[in-house]
């Protein structure tokens, strides 16, 4: 209920995130924040229009949800249809090619987010001049950083091209395997730039770590809160971005469930619909919709895994955990540091894989007993991604359910928005710089709103001041 004489501020669209969303902030007569919400306002409906299509189209069709990390959808759909063709036990060549593809995309996506989307806030300040608070501003003030970001992203995309056939929307992963191996020429070309990218990754982690530690007191109060976390882990508890069992931990790091097979996800996770957003609100069934919301993504993965199986990233993880007292980090802005730890992990895994002769193997595809259902999970750059398909006897998809990472982070993003609004906007004259604080909190999650509503688009931002009667008092737009 809106207080008489109160006003509503709308940030629409939110900028420097993937997709189209808005924020509304309801303020009472005295200028206090009554409520703040993050809405995703685009919709496309992939789950519906892939019905009737043959299942082998899924890895190629569904990835068109997104242009930033389509490889996640490509691989998750491929893993799901692996199960439909009984080909989930991939050959070493197929599994390692897919992993290389996945680490390549994690690398490029994390580099894109950190250098292109987030760095203006971190380098110039949340409330700095909007005229230069963007990637071109970074290019002007920190040209070497901007160049690194572009070249790191390019390196990840070259890996995707070598494994999937194209830098964006390739076709590499097919039911039961992969359609190509890595030629020696492709391998050598990628190896040539490996050392440089490892060095840049180490430097990027340092930037994120130094920033977080230098501002830890402020960041601890900036849209931060304890939460549950969900991610995949390997059987031995290691971070695994491509495969594994599902783990959920609470704010103290206590295990809620562990090593849950993808097929059992519905036993543990449900989704709630709320009337004001096209995004659903997933929650852990064991804790219910009120308390069962959770975070996913780099913060959760680095917080909830037992260790990282690459030395440089593991050393960094230990520092990260030490800062949060061994518990999952509650600091929303620590997503950036965790993301760069994963960037480093990705380049270490790329190094490992490029030196593995299995990538030149010739056995690419396996098939087994046909099933009518396939469920798979991968850790997309932004967090845990679920794909679930049912097919009929004629090989057509009859049901699809996709839970993307941004959907899982829906409630946390809403909480972050409300927290920042209360902290920074309460009783204040609203300025563009203050409103950017809200976006900074959203950006920490690196949300992909296109994926979240299974839509396509981009995400600029506008602000409206609306009084209790609904009349627009003021409006700002940018994008």
């Amino acid at each position, binding site marked *: 209920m809106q207080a008489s004489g109160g006003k509503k501020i709308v940030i629409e669209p939110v900028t420097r995130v993937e997709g189209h969303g808005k924020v509304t902030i309801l303020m009472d007569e005295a200028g206090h924040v009554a409520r703040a919400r993050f809405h995703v306002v685009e919709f496309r409906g992939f789950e519906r229009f892939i019905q009737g299509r043959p299942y082998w189209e899924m890895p190629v069709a569904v990835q068109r949800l997104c242009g930033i990390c389509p490889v996640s959808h490509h691989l998750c759909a491929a893993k799901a249809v692996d199960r439909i063709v009984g080909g989930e036990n991939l050959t070493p060549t197929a599994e390692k090619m897919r992993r290389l593809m996945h680490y390549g995309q994690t690398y490029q996506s994390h580099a894109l987010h950190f250098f292109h989307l987030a760095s203006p806030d971190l380098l110039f300040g949340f409330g700095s001049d909007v005229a230069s608070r963007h990637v071109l501003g970074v290019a002007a003030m920190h040209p070497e950083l901007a160049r690194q970001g572009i070249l790191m992203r390019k390196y990840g995309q070259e890996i995707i091209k070598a494994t999937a*056939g194209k830098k964006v929307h390739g076709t590499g992963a097919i039911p039961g395997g992969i359609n190509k191996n890595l030629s020696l020429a492709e391998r050598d070309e990628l190896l040539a730039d490996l050392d440089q990218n490892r060095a840049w990754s180490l430097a990027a982690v340092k930037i994120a770590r130094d920033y977080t530690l230098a501002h830890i007191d402020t960041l601890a109060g900036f849209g931060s809160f304890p939460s549950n976390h969900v991610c995949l882990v390997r059987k031995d508890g290691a971070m695994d971005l491509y495969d594994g069992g599902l783990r959920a931990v609470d704010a103290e790091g206590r295990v809620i469930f562990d090593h849950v097979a993808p097929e059992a996800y519905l036993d543990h996770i449900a989704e709630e619909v709320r009337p004001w957003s096209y995004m659903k609100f997933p929650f852990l069934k064991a804790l219910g919709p009120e308390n069962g919301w959770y975070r996913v993504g780099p913060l959760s993965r680095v917080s909830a895994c037992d260790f990282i199986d690459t030395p440089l990233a593991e050393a960094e993880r230990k520092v990260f955990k030490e800062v949060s007292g061994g518990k999952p980090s509650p600091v929303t802005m620590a997503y950036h540091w965790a993301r760069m730890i994963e960037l480093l992990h990705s380049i270490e895994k790329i190094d490992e894989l490029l030196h593995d002769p299995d990538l030149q193997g010739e056995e690419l595809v396996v098939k087994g007993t046909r099933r009518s259902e396939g469920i798979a999970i991968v850790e997309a750059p932004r967090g845990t991604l679920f794909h679930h398909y049912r097919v009929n006897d004629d090989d*057509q998809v009859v049901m699809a359910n996709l839970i993307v990472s941004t959907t899982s982070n829906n409630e946390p993003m809403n909480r972050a928005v409300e927290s920042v609004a209360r902290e920074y906007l309460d009783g204040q004259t609203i300025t563009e710089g203050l409103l950017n604080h809200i976006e900074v909190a959203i950006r920490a999650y690196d949300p992909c709103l296109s994926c979240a509503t299974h839509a396509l688009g981009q995400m600029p931002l506008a602000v409206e001041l609306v009084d209790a009667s609904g009349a627009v008092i003021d409006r700002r737009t940018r994008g």
Partner: protein
Amino acid sequence: MSEGPRFTLDGREIPLVPGQTVIEAADAAGIYIPRLCHKPGLEPFGSCRVCTVKANGRSVAACTYPASPGMIVESDTEEVNAHRKLLLEMLFVEGNHFCMSCEKSGNCELQALGYRFAIAAPQLEFQFPVRDVDASHPDILIDHNRCILCSRCVRASRDLDKKEVFGFVGRGPHKRIAVSSGTRLRDTDADVTDQALDVCPVGALLRKRVGFAVPVGQRLYDKVPIGGAPVVPEAPVAEEGRA
């Protein structure tokens, strides 16, 4: 140069064998005339009109029009190519051709002609017809969304497989490929080894579970445009950015 009857194609003297069509004589001389419904080995049909040329000033289908000594044929001209491009655009908009998720992408003749003629986006309004998929056969799938009514499968099934699995029903905008027995492909004697499955120029008639087995870069038209050198020099060739 051998003696014998000849005609002129885009200013070049082309030998002909009596009984040859214009497109057959052009193929024999190594000159590409764009086509969709025409397929060597199948009886000429003349339905798509993409092979339209001007013979002695008259627009005719090169796949059905007999080559005759002394005739003057224009094919690779601005006017004729403009007509072809329009025909291709009409084919694109009257079906549901979503190259980005079509397994025939890279091997599709319609798509390849789209690239050859540099069709970035059709100028005509998309029709978005409601069409179905017949996946009832255990090994074969018909996606009516992509069918361009070229009749290659009709002719191949009838003349090569001796089966007559496919035929046309309806007229005008309602015309569509149908199967000869009942309403579903599974009720016919279609078989996965039928030659009819090898002739579809688009992704309408497919063997099941082949999907995207051929990687990008190794598909038919990934490196070289259909028909060799493109009509439009700046037409894209590389795999980058292609569906």
